[in-house]
């Protein structure tokens, strides 16, 4: 497989995953912003900006932070490289340059999403409401995944695509966890209502709300949430799940190029697979997450070095 093709496919998948993650985050922020301030709504609006590291950029362009400006910035703002519009555009550009490597169903799905998104952007958010836009983007994301899963050969192209998806997803989960943790620590009170909504928001932004209640009875607890989001073998957005998938994609890719990436990934996988929530708590969740993020970042660098700078 051409190195350039692998690179484009990988970044296509990362951009798509980024857009989908952002949609979840916006969805939750939007809901929270509708709540009275006492429940932490304003804090919630900040979350997408801190998680994506775009708070400064936002402040430069928008006079005030409210649900509307936040949505505008993250849905449609072209000057924001991290907006959903920019992510989908870049995913579509990457897909276009390697369209011969995607199945026609997968290509058409992403192309149609792009065309429709441009159309919706012209009409503006108010036309149909933020919620239905958000739902639509999520749906399109599912459709692309389904088309790719169901119609493409599960060969190198597919492996690089999933590689992009899982590294982006792992990064996203770790970041969200870290930011939420900071928010909750900064509030350091025992207001159960705020805690409740914060944990809820965290679970929802990782699509894990329902999973939590399937696995754990009783209320929301730090211990359980941590265990679920970091160590669960079943939750598709848990760190253990993402890193495990990353490992199996790396193993499936033909050739011996990716040895360094595989070694690093295997180490991390072992830590998560044999990890215990008590150990993490003892270690300090904050430091633990920072360490994880650093490792994920290094794996990404090694992927670059091995597969597209190697030849």
């Amino acid at each position, binding site marked *: *497989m*051409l*190195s*350039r*093709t*692998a690179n484009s496919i990988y970044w296509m998948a990362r951009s798509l995953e980024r857009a989908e993650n952002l949609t979840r985050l916006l969805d939750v922020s939007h809901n929270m912003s509708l709540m009275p301030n006492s429940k932490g709504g304003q804090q919630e609006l900040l979350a997408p900006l801190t998680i994506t590291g775009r708070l400064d950029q936002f402040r430069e362009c928008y006079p005030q932070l409210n649900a509307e400006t936040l949505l505008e910035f993250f849905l449609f703002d072209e000057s924001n490289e991290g907006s959903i519009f920019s992510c989908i555009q870049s995913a579509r*550009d990457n897909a*276009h*340059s*390697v*369209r*011969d*490597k995607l199945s*026609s169903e997968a*290509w*058409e799905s992403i*192309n*149609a999403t792009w*065309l429709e998104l441009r159309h919706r952007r012209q009409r503006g958010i108010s036309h149909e409401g933020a919620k239905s836009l958000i739902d639509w983007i999520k749906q399109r994301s599912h459709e692309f995944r389904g088309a790719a899963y169901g119609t493409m050969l599960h060969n*190198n192209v597919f492996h*690089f695509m999933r590689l992009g998806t899982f590294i982006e997803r792992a990064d996203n989960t770790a970041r969200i966890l870290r930011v939420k943790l900071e928010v909750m620590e900064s509030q350091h009170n025992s207001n159960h209502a705020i805690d409740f909504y914060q944990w809820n928001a965290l679970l929802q932004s990782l699509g894990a709300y329902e999973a939590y209640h399937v696995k754990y009875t009783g209320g929301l607890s730090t211990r359980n949430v941590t265990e679920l989001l970091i160590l669960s073998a079943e939750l598709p957005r848990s760190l253990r799940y993402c890193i495990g998938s990353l490992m199996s994609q790396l193993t499936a*890719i*033909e*050739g011996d*190029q990716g040895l360094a990436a595989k070694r690093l990934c295997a180490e991390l996988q072992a830590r998560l697979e044999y990890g215990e929530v008590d150990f993490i708590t003892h270690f300090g969740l904050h430091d633990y997450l920072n360490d994880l993020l650093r490792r994920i970042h290094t794996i990404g660098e090694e992927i670059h070095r091995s*597969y*597209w700078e*190697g*030849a």
Partner: protein
Amino acid sequence: MTAIEQPAPHLYDEMLSSEGVHPHYQAYFQWLENTPDASLEQKRREADTLFRRFGITFNVYGEEEGTERLIPFDLIPRIIPASEWNQLELGVRQRVTALNRFLHDIYHDQEILRAGIIPTEQVLTNQQFQTAMLGVDLPGHNYIPITGVDLIRDNSGEYFVLEDNLRTPSGVSYMLENRKMMMRLFPELFLTQNVAPVEHYPNLLLETLQSASDADSPCVVVLTPGRYNSAFFEHAFLAQQMGVPLVEGADLFVRYGCVYMRTTTGPRQVHVIYRRIDDAFLDPLAFNQNSMLGVPGLLSAYRDGNVILANALGTGVADDKSIYPYVPDMIRFYLDEEPILNNVPTWVCRRQEDLTYVLDHLEELVVKEVHGAGGYGMLIGPKAGREELDKFRQLLRSNPANYIAQPTLCLSTCPTMVNEGIAPRHIDLRPFVLSGNEIKLVPGGLTRVALREGSLVVNSSQGGGTKDTWVLEDAPC
């Protein structure tokens, strides 16, 4: 049914003659008569949406926003009876054979020049003549694995060759996509009519490209300038249909005289390059130094016979408009046969007597730049104003060798869906010819249509559209 505007009596129309409907169009015409116009209109919108969704587009240079455009697709097919097609096919094969012989000859013994059939300076000083190809031996002496021959019909219904495209002819993806669209929209027509299939073209193309190399299992790639190129859709389409990598210049490199591509498992040797990049951009070491599109060292690997280019380097000298008038002579010279397909009568302005005639009859003629393409840089005499005629008179006098002239041809028309209903519009036809161990064509080609009333310009870059081309087996004629 939608009203069909009658064609002008002095033109040849593919569907309607003065006696009524041509026999091979009878069945289609009956179907058309029974089809409500609202349904056609709806199919047209459906086709537009689908083409857009599939991303079957071409890129327009110099337009910032929305640079990917759809080529307008017309729902009404151009139909050719098998007997007529067979004759066309014979003519096209003959022509391509002679052109290939010509290319080998001028890069080797130059017998045709020594025999005085074509003026030597016309070939050797031609911008497209590549001295680098002198004495280079290509496997099977095959210079032009892929050609596209542009055909038109005049008002008597006779076919003429308008142009030979021997460099990187495009449009074959539209031929295939148009067919797919027609089968999707009008399955009932394909059930009742014997439309010859064209879908195996990519298989034939791959066979042709593979057969060009002596390697055991040759690695074939399609080389594209990238996704901003006007024909990028086609490049990606063909690579996908053949199941071969679509590469850009930067994906390839030359080492120890061989060409490799950069893959995720390390370098892999490339044997055949179906290149969709012009000669001048292929190798920055040999040609255009500023080009980022090509591969440094490619030319020397090619000359050493370590990689095949399709088409070969330097084929442009044979599809040049100044060489075109000599193709019938080539056929006689190399094949000792009479040409089956006619050339359009052509005045070569570098000849003094031709120039005099052209200057005297400018209002009746079409003047074309020898190296022009895409419908640019031409004068259509009967449509031109005083000023434009004067401008071309001056151009002709100052650089006659740069121009040829032809009579204004009455291109045949074919009923076409336009805003007002169905009306005759001028068309041409480009069949695609594959030359490997043998010459192969799929029965059909790309029919281009000039959508503006009265216009003769069918180029997509000038707003032309396309139609599906049906060769009807067992059709009455």
